[in-house]
């Protein structure tokens, strides 16, 4: 009996959505490395990770939010706003990079908290609050910069987005990995993480357990604001400027990474490393299609079809 249960668990593990994304990911990698010889080269792999990092970081915050059953559509705009503010702090105010980044991340946290407060305390649907915030943050970024990108960043600042650790690992990738590890600890080894999962599972029950549900719901948006701020730093450093129009549509990519990674859009279930996989899968997809020289229009069709096909294939496997 016990042996049977064990076997089932093992088999079931193989059928978790993350696992399926993992399979999809490897299948894609194998295909691409067969048809394109550059694909598995060291520089290309480091390219992919670097390309994935911004979406990956945004997707971490999004995972927290989605686990509670919420959504954050403002991440792209908040990233742009924090990025331009960081640039402005360095260029116009003369703050050193470190301080400027801090200001930007704090701003991201504050905006996130505002999202959270309206969602959790005022009980306005997250989708409305963050859609409104998406417009507000975008407008603020445009107002702050007058529409022009802010350029003239100190040379040292480029390290965050363009530098390498030990000369090989791109800094954005390093930052992304740190963010994932911190998220992993929060979600799996701290009570906060438990509560986040629990709220997505049955909010009323969590409330009955005497946990301050509203505070936790607010906090996930705050976390998402922080990750948007971190992404803003990488973005502004990579682009050597504060771009008020950066990040349009990134919210959908981040959501795609989270859901591809197996997190239930209704909340309560999911895994942060699934999100990493989801982001990598999306990154490999566009990188591979680019390397194969597929036409941009066809790429869009293929990208959509491959995502849907991969998930469909996984879901069939899941059934049998």
């Amino acid at each position, binding site marked *: 009996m016990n042996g049977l249960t064990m076997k089932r668990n093992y088999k079931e593990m193989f059928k978790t959505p993350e696992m399926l994304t993992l399979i999809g990911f490897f299948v894609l990698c194998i295909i691409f490395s067969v048809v394109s010889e550059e694909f598995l080269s060291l520089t290309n792999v480091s390219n992919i990770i670097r390309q994935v990092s911004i979406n990956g970081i945004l997707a971490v915050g999004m995972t927290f939010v989605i686990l509670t059953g919420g959504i954050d559509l403002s991440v792209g705009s908040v990233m742009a706003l924090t990025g331009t503010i960081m640039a402005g702090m360095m260029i116009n105010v003369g703050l050193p990079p470190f301080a400027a980044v801090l200001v930007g991340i704090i701003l991201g946290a504050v905006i996130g908290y505002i999202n959270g407060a309206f969602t959790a305390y005022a009980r306005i649907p997250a989708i409305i609050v963050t859609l409104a915030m998406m417009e507000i943050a975008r407008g603020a970024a445009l107002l702050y910069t007058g529409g022009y990108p802010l350029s003239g960043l100190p040379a040292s600042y480029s390290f965050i987005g363009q530098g390498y650790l030990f000369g090989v690992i791109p800094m954005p990738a390093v930052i992304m990995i740190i963010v994932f590890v911190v998220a992993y600890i929060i979600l799996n080894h701290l009570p906060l993480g438990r509560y986040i999962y629990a709220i997505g599972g049955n909010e009323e029950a969590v409330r009955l357990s005497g946990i301050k549900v509203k505070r936790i719901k607010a906090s996930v948006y705050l976390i998402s604001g922080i990750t948007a701020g971190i992404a803003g730093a990488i973005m502004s450093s990579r682009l050597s400027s504060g771009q008020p129009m950066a*990040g349009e549509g990134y919210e959908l990519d981040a959501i795609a990474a989270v859901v591809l990674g197996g997190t239930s859009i209704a909340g309560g279930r999911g895994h942060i490393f699934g999100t990493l996989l989801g982001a990598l899968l999306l990154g490999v997809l566009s990188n591979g299609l*680019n390397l194969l020289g597929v036409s*941009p229009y066809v790429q869009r069709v293929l990208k959509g079809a491959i995502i849907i096909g991969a998930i469909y294939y996984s879901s069939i496997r899941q059934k049998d």
Partner: protein
Amino acid sequence: SDSGASNNGEGSEDGETNASGKQLKIGMSFQEMNNPYFISMNEAFQEAAKSVGAETIIADAQHDVTKQINDIDDMIQQGIDILIINPADSEGAQAAVQAAHDAGVIVVAVDAQAEGPLDSFVGSKNYDAGYLAGQQMAEDLGGEGKVAILDGIPVVPILERVEGFKDAISEHPGIEIVDIQNGRQDRAEAMSVTENMLQANSDLDAIFSVNDEGALGSLGAVEASGKDVWIYSVDGHPEAVEAILSDGPFKATTAQFPRDQVRVGLGIALAKYWGAEIVPDEIPIDVKLLNKENAEGFTW
């Protein structure tokens, strides 16, 4: 239909080859590919590249400079020799230009300037484009009237056009800019925004749009309203030319020459590739005002 999209080189045997004996590879990264302007640019690019037997790779940044950087990283990975970049943003593209340069790729920007170690830049005189349209408007209005600006996505060329236009208008104290709204260079958006502008300013005389897509949206709104509001713009879009010739509200547009920009750009890049040490840093391409008198027969 003609997709105007990439094809992986025609592989002509006696084509241009690089040092290692491989075929010459040219990458071109567009800021967008949903506008006849860039599509004709791409056509000219493909033709020119084919005539030297080069393989081409193209990418569409969809207005996202981060995507553009990623696309260019991937091109470098594929071993391009020449990069023609049509930057989604001048500052933002810097990392890509740098990376390409570091990889020994010749980089030429077209249509919009890019920061970083460029080999050359070929672009329209955007300030002039706005200025010429403004002059024509002022002239048509007889130096008197109320006008509005239909702005677009805030990137340097667009901002320069607006600046040029404003400067032209400021030379005519009788003309007042009463409204600035953003049509996002999108026909549908521009149409709604124009409808509202016409409503808000019942005595409006003319509108300057930063590009023809926006102007064509405005045209729909103006025609529907039955008002006599004149439209001026920048680009030389085939539909705009048609509208100007039909003697409607669309009075003039300052034409750009996308095919020539890319031809000149590619030419400079090839010169560099063949060993030229001195090439011009910047080649401004003239723009040409099109109105009812001279628009006949114009095409990109």
